[in-house]
Structure formats: C-alpha cells, structure tokens
C-alpha cells in the first residue's frame, strides 16, 4: 500500500504540532534569564528560519529534476517549493524585525548576516516567481522556471558568504547543551510543525499548478451553436 498524499495528512499534523509546540513555548517554558519573555519569539522564529532555508534548498533539486526529465510534476513541485519558501522567508523577516526591535533596539540592520541574506534570498526567489507569472507559453514556462530557479539557487551560498564578511550583530548560535530542555522542546516541535505545514503548502500549490495545466490543455470551449456542425 502506498502512503496517502501528504496533501491529506501533512497539514493536520503540522497544525497539531504547532499548537502543542506553541503551547509549550508560550505557557510552560521558563522566561530567559537575560531576555525575559521575548525569548519565546525564538520558538517560532528559529524553526521558520530553518525551514525557509530547507525549502529553498529543495527547490534547486526539483528544478534540476524538471530540466532533466522534462516531466510536468517536477515543475509543479518546483513552483510549490519556491512559493512556500518565499512565504516562509517573508514571515521570517517580519518575525525577525519584531525580535530585533526589543532586543537590539532596531527593526532592521544591514549589518546582520542572517537578516540581510534572508532578505536577498526573498528577492531572488520572488523574482523567479514573477518571471514565471509573465510566461504564457507552457513549455517555456516549465524550462525557464527551472533555469531561473537553478541560477538563483547557486547564488544563495555566494550571497550568504558575501554578506557575512560585513560585520554582524546576530547572536552566536546557542547549542542544545546551553539551553533549558523546556526551551529545546518547543523549538524542535515547531520545527517539525512548520516542516509539515510547508509540505502541505507545497503539495497543495503543486496540485493547483497541475489542475491549471489540465484546464489549459483543454481547448477553449467552442462558441454555442458551433457544436451542432460536428
């Protein structure tokens, strides 16, 4: 028996996990010794960051698959993944600003590596999506989306390292050992929650793309009355 499509279960699983994870993060985990309750933002912010990077990484794989095989399902998955990544990164940036204001006193810092490189990634992949939206020819749309996604994808590490050579004020990564177990738990739970929600987003978006293509393949309905002549 094959596993049912993630579209059936992934969204519910993600929803359940995010409710549990956020409950633990908001109600059970202790406030941080230095940052107080603001630290609770991290239980949703950090998992969003992990997943946005993960989805962009996967998008490159799907795009290569799409060029390699020329099969439409890879194209559907590429669009789904890039769009999910863009949504998560947009969310990530807003969360980051809400985190930055109370902790650093500023909404935005051009000196912060992760903030700036996330923003540039958002621009890169949003550009891919908007390029795609202007392509009418279905064959071109498939290959050009894949080409643009691969070009953008290769740029991600270059952008990251370039931005990194400008000075940063992002705090050093905490390792699990330095954290209270009650802080690790909500972060991990929410990481899986957003992963499953993201998988649902991407499969749903891919399904929409597949349905659109099907309706494109059907020739436009003949004007009323023309059918009688057949």
């Amino acid at each position, binding site marked *: 028996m094959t596993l049912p499509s993630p579209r059936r279960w992934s969204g519910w699983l993600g929803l359940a996990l995010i409710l549990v994870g956020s409950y633990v993060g908001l109600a059970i985990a202790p406030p941080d010794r230095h940052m*107080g*309750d603001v630290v609770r*933002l991290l239980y*949703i912010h950090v998992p969003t960051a992990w997943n946005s990077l993960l989805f962009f990484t996967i998008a490159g794989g799907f795009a290569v698959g799409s060029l390699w095989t020329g099969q439409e399902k890879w194209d559907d998955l590429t669009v789904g993944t890039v769009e999910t990544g863009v949504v998560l990164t947009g969310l990530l940036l807003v969360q980051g600003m809400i985190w930055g204001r109370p902790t650093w006193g500023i909404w935005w810092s051009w000196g912060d590596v992760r903030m700036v490189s996330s923003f540039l990634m958002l621009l890169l992949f949003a550009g891919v999506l908007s390029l795609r939206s202007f392509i009418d020819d279905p064959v071109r749309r498939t290959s050009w989306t894949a080409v643009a996604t691969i070009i953008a994808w290769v740029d991600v590490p270059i952008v990251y390292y370039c931005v990194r050579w400008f000075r940063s004020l992002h705090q050093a990564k905490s390792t699990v050992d330095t954290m209270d177990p009650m802080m690790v738990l909500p972060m991990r739970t929410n990481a899986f929650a957003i992963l499953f929600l993201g998988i649902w*987003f991407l499969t*749903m978006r891919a399904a929409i793309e597949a*349905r659109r293509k099907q309706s494109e393949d059907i020739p436009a309905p003949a004007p009323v009355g023309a059918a009688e002549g057949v």
Partner: protein
Amino acid sequence: MAPEGVIIDGWNWVIAGYSVTVVVLVGYTLSLFSRYRKSKD
C-alpha cells in the same frame, strides 16, 4: 512584571510575533484553498 535582572519584559512583542505568524500561515492557507477551487479540473 519582569523578574529581577531581566532586561526586557516583552509579552507584547511575543504576542505580536505569534499573531503575525498566525495571520501569514492562515492567510496563505486560505489563498491556496481559493486558488484550488478556481483551478477546477
């Protein structure tokens, strides 16, 4: 109130952050549903 030694007391920021998250995730879900319905096969 913030306990002794805590520099920031930030429930309002926490609420803002989680609200934004809910709005974006729910909003995107709704947009997917509406696009799914419009893309009738």
